[in-house]
């Protein structure tokens, strides 16, 4: 009789890496303390049982319709599930507290930045952020000039991507300020964990995430135009062919708001109305999941059939609030990112709590020399070009290309900044094909909300897993998976 394998055996065979930080095991291969309970629980499950649970998790995702469409090449229109790994990622309370404070600080500064660059432009006049960088941005929106949305809030929902580096510190990798998606995975992953590993979950004292839709609804209502007591709020979706349609419908349902498409709304006398069987009904706040370019064909792309003609006029008249405001994309650009710590100091007179990936500015003497000597270890970006253009990746360039690029930098030092390549931490992940646990790179998409006198951070977030070995890109459309993310109570 073949002896039944338990996960304990699998963990013993786990291939450790010293190159990256492992979230579960320390340098000596010992289980980190905050993972002990989960480890003890999983270790006692037999492999066939675990596979059964794993299949069950997949099936439940499919049955709930938690799928996304893959747009690339042959698989066009195919609905896929975002694979969910049963081994949860755990963030210790102390670490989380710092992340949460850091995110709130960051969002305050970014909102002040947006208000500034669309109005007084002080930070540009003071040369803290180069004006060329902002003015060259495709997302710098003329239609937001000289106007402040209700409460000075531009970014109501932000999805900051964070990684844990080799040094054990969290770093912000990028800000996503244009209605980021993914929170429905957080909620459904949590639901799946509760259903599949109930004993473990309820003993582990995990902070809840289920309050997210309620918090989002509060934030949306908090920015209703002045004088509106019982605001009518809607979720605006591009429609069922959008890859995040599941999320739009899920959030609308959870928040008790109508899910609408552009053709369900119209503007008259600078107010927005929803077409209903009882006649037009005034709409006060729109949580829009349509890109800026498509929300109003009178102002942005005239060929858009997804938007509402006249919406921007109604918005600027203060008769409707848009969540998030248009024009926020200028602040989540790759080059603008490098100035976020400066924004925090400039607007808040505070030191940044969360680290940014270190940035060398070639205009500075020491930085310049370092960049020339370490080009093979760096990523170099132009400061006056947004949208990821002109980025030079040292490790992928030939020696000749590196030499050529040094000359380009020398010719215009002010134009270039450089950053080290970051190494994402790894997390023990069940790999079906090999029937064992292997280390895979993970990052963390966090979800923060800013309303009128409300600041909220979802406790946990979406841990994304690069399922291909060695792959550093963790993205749902690039063969990624996800983990439930636990923030423990003190």
């Amino acid at each position, binding site marked *: 009789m073949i002896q039944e394998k338990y996960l304990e055996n699998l963990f013993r065979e786990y291939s450790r890496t010293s190159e990256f930080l492992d979230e579960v095991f320390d340098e000596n291969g010992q289980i980190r303390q905050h993972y002990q309970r989960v480890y003890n629980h999983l270790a006692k499950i037999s492999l066939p049982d675990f596979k059964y649970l794993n299949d069950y998790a997949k099936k439940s995702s499919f049955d709930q319709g938690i799928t996304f469409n893959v747009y690339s090449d042959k698989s066009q229109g195919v609905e896929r599930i975002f694979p969910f790994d049963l081994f949860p990622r755990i963030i210790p309370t102390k670490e989380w507290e710092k992340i949460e404070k850091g995110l709130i600080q960051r969002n305050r500064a970014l909102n002040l930045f947006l208000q500034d660059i669309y109005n007084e*432009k002080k930070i*540009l*006049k003071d*040369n803290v952020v180069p*004006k060329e960088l902002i*003015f060259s941005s495709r997302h710098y929106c*003329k*239609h937001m*000039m*000289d106007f402040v949305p209700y409460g000075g809030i531009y970014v109501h929902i932000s999805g900051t991507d964070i990684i844990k580096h080799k040094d054990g510190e969290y770093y912000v990798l990028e800000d996503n300020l244009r209605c980021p998606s993914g929170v429905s995975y957080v909620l459904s992953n949590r639901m799946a964990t509760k259903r599949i590993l109930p004993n473990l979950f309820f003993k582990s004292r995990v902070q809840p995430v289920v309050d997210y839709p309620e918090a989002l609804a509060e934030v949306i209502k908090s920015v209703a135009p002045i004088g509106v007591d019982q605001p009518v709020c809607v979720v605006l979706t591009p429609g069922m062919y959008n890859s995040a349609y599941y999320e739009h419908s899920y959030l609308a349902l959870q928040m008790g708001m109508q899910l609408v498409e552009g*053709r369900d709304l*119209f*503007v*008259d*006398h*600078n107010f927005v109305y929803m077409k209903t069987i009882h006649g037009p009904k005034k709409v006060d706040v729109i949580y829009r999941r349509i890109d800026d370019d498509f929300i109003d*064909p*009178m102002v942005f792309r*005239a060929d858009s059939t997804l938007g509402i*003609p*006249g919406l921007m*006029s109604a918005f*600027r*008249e203060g008769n409707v609030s848009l969540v998030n405001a248009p024009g926020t994309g200028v602040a989540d650009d790759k080059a603008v990112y490098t100035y976020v710590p400066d924004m925090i100091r400039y607007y808040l007179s505070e030191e940044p709590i969360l680290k940014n990936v270190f940035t060398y500015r070639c205009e500075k003497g020491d930085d310049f020399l370092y960049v020339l000597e370490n080009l093979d270890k760096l990523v170099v970006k132009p400061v006056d070009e947004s949208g990821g253009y002109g980025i030079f990746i040292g490790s992928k360039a030939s020696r000749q290309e590196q030499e050529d690029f040094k000359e380009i930098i020398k010719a215009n030092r002010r134009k270039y900044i450089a950053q080290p390549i970051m190494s994402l931490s790894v997390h023990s992940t069940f790999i079906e094909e090999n029937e064992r646990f292997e280390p895979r790179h993970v990052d963390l998409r966090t979800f923060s909300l800013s309303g009128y006198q409300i600041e909220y951070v979802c406790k946990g977030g979406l841990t994304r897993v690069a399922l291909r070995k060695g792959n550093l890109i963790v993205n749902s459309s690039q063969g990624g998976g996800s983990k439930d993310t636990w923030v423990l109570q003190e």
Partner: protein
Amino acid sequence: MVTYHISYEAENVYDHQVQEALFEFLVVPCTSDTQEVTEEKIENSLKIPFFRSRNVFGYNLICVRIGKPFNHFKIKVSCTVHKATEDSFPSSADSLPLEEELAILDSDAFIVDHYLYIQQTPLTALPAEKIPSSLLYQRDKSLLEYMTSLNSALYGMLEYKPGVTNPSTRACDVLNNPRGVCQDYTHLMLGVLRHHQIPARYVSGYLNQGQDFMGSAQMHAWVEAFVPKLGWVGFDPTNNRVADHHHIKVADGTDYTDCSPLKGHINPPVPNKTDHTVQVVQQ
């Protein structure tokens, strides 16, 4: 003081029925230091109540939302405008000394404040090497003098010819084929000024039809350029004039797209024909 009666009519005829529509008209003269709108009358063939809105630059829009099927729509806007005749066009003597003027022009704060009118748009952008050197600013005379000479140079360089261009014709196309109408003259002048980082904006409005001016039959376009200390100064390259009491301003913006008299969105998008009629009568 001079008084004008202005009327603007637009008639849209659609090949098929339109179910719903929103129209925005940017056709009513603005009120400023030199002009004032008194009487105003707006009628439309469908008898739908209009509403007002403001565009991003603060100019008045007349808007109509139509929520019932139609295939013909006509609007008539008429108004009376009083315009000051003591033209306040500055003279070179009012300019700052050249060095001071240039120092301001080059300063970061000035560029940040005026970036919207310094940055080229797709309609105004010109390849630097294609601009004839006779049009370039050598920094040897005051901005006002340069603008005046550029205004004349463009008037001399281009041939006024309706029908060969349309509102999406770019300044660089006009440079290659120097013919067109007021918006082409205007886009080209904006392109050259902005090439020198001089803030310049597109102005739309009406031109006195009692004179022998080019471009008075329809809505007209000209340029306003910014001179430190003097502010915005108007030039009409189509007529080799400065903008004066014959020019009745409606709005300004970065290029034609910010100032087009009629913007609309119809559902479904059916083919249509639009006719505009403009009358500007001096009392």
